[in-house]
């Protein structure tokens, strides 16, 4: 007579998997790591002298943050909320005024053709040692937002699409028209 194979009691299987489930439920953290992505400049080799790059004054937008988190843009006190518009104006220089960066005409290929853009503009952010991190990040955020908005406008104008939906090489073309040039100086003490 064939031996009957005894059935394994699987009723506790559900309990075991419940236990595991609850463990992972508890340890799960769904929050994704987000952040403001930036790129640092490469270090200066020790044998090389620090040379001040000669930048034409009109090509430079100086943003200073003092220890009381106040903002000074081109020598004027300004609120963080106004910075984005100011930066956009500066980067575009639509009206070709002489106190905003020099416009350079260059061929960007189809579908752009010849475009005038502020090739050599630089935004310089200078902060105090005692500046609050949040205030610094606010400024960085507004400047990045200004670039993002300009790129978005450009994408809508030439491709009639959102910047995010463009192909990689199309995004690169737009990045050439609006290159992110945010320079950061060493922190100094600007009055107290």
């Amino acid at each position: 007579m064939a031996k009957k194979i005894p059935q394994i009691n699987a009723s506790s299987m559900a309990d075991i998997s419940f236990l595991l489930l609850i463990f992972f439920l508890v340890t799960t953290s769904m929050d994704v790591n987000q952040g403001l992505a930036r790129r640092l400049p490469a270090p200066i080799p020790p044998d090389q002298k620090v040379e001040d790059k000669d930048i034409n004054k009109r090509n430079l937008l100086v943003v200073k943050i003092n220890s009381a988190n106040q903002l000074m843009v081109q020598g004027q006190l300004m609120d963080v909320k106004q910075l984005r518009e100011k930066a956009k104006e500066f980067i575009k220089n639509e009206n070709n005024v002489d106190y905003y960066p020099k416009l350079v005409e260059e061929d960007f290929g189809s579908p752009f053709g010849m475009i005038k853009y502020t090739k050599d503009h630089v935004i310089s952010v200078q902060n105090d040692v005692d500046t609050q991190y949040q205030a610094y990040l606010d400024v960085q955020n507004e400047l990045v937002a200004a670039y993002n908005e300009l790129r978005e406008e450009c994408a809508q104008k030439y491709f009639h699409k959102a910047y995010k939906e463009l192909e990689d090489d199309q995004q690169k073309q737009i990045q050439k028209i609006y290159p992110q040039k945010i320079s950061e100086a060493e922190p100094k003490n600007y009055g107290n």
Partner: protein
Amino acid sequence: MAKIRRNEKREMPALNTSSLPDIIFMLLFFFMSVTTMKEVTYKVSIHNPQATELTKLEKKSLVRYIYVGVPTADFVKTYGSDTRIQLDDAFAEAKEIGDFIINERSSMKESEQPLMTVSIKADKDTRMGVIADIKQELRRAYALKISYAATQRSN
């Protein structure tokens, strides 16, 4: 003729639960795949700053973290209430960041090394002097891709 059965005992049929483990396993696998264990235990208290132009850090294996903040209540006695830097599980000085980055980089695959991103998780009230020191150290260690950790500002 039809007979009306009235007195016959009716038993509730047993619910078949044999597929219950499968369902639970399905849930289990879902949570297993989305789970991220906390990287370290925080020794510094960090209130994230807020920003709007955020990008997600895609690959977890490429990201290394630097924590900056005031030591938590347990450590105030031994480490004071000044802003401190935490690398992995220990307090560190800004000078140690260079070695930390080089160590971490050498433990990564060679093809991934240039893609390493350093996420600076700093408290929103940190003074910029500390952050500037960290940035200088990162530059020196050629860890140029950085990300300032922040949460989305809700307007």
